[in-house]
């Protein structure tokens, strides 16, 4: 596709419910990142994939969060037993290079706004 696509755009979950957020990066982009952006804050790193390999998951806040990118393209961020503090915008970004994008930076998706009630 022309850009990074995320779905759903909005998700309301009851506390304790499991959710799955999808990211479809730009075709051919090697690197894929997930960020969490709480209200009034900047994006915070969650995890990084280089192709299908998850090379850094140090930003995942708890073991309720995990992400996968099994074929090196689409990625899913799953949150189990959601809590109110999980409410945030979840951003996906991709880059044609391995690493932080260097001169290219990231291309971001529109994000998924998760509200846990």
């Amino acid at each position, binding site marked *: 596709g022309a850009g990074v696509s995320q779905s759903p755009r909005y998700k309301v979950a009851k506390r304790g419910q499991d959710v799955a957020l999808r990211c479809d990066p730009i075709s051919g982009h090697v690197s894929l990142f997930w960020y969490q952006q709480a209200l009034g804050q900047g994006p915070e790193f969650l995890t*990084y994939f280089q192709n299908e390999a998850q090379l850094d998951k140090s930003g995942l806040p708890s073991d309720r969060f995990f992400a996968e990118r099994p074929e090196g393209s689409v990625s899913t961020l799953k949150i189990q037993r959601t809590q109110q503090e999980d409410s945030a915008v979840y951003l996906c970004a991709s880059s044609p290079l391995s*690493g932080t994008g260097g001169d290219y930076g990231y291309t971001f998706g529109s994000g998924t706004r998760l509200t846990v009630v």
Partner: protein
Amino acid sequence: AQRVTQPEKLLSVFKGAPVELKCNYSYSGSPELFWYVQYSRQRLQLLLRHISRESIKGFTADLNKGETSFHLKKPFAQEEDSAMYYCALPGGYQKVTFGIGTKLQVIP
């Protein structure tokens, strides 16, 4: 630990006035730095990167290693510049550290 500080959450300027969005960083190595922008109802996008020393939409930013700053400047603000601006510092293995963001409001 690397850190990015944007001291102003909101900056209001009149159209035609100069703009300076402040960014200070803490990083032990040789930093690369970016500015990202998010216009209303649009996605976060790269505005400029220090390594290319370019001017985008009239904005420039100079890396000052002595002051550990990377302030974003524009001589004459336009209404369409109103947006959220994030200073960003790549570091570590792959992650990028973003500042809290500054909302620029250009008053007509």
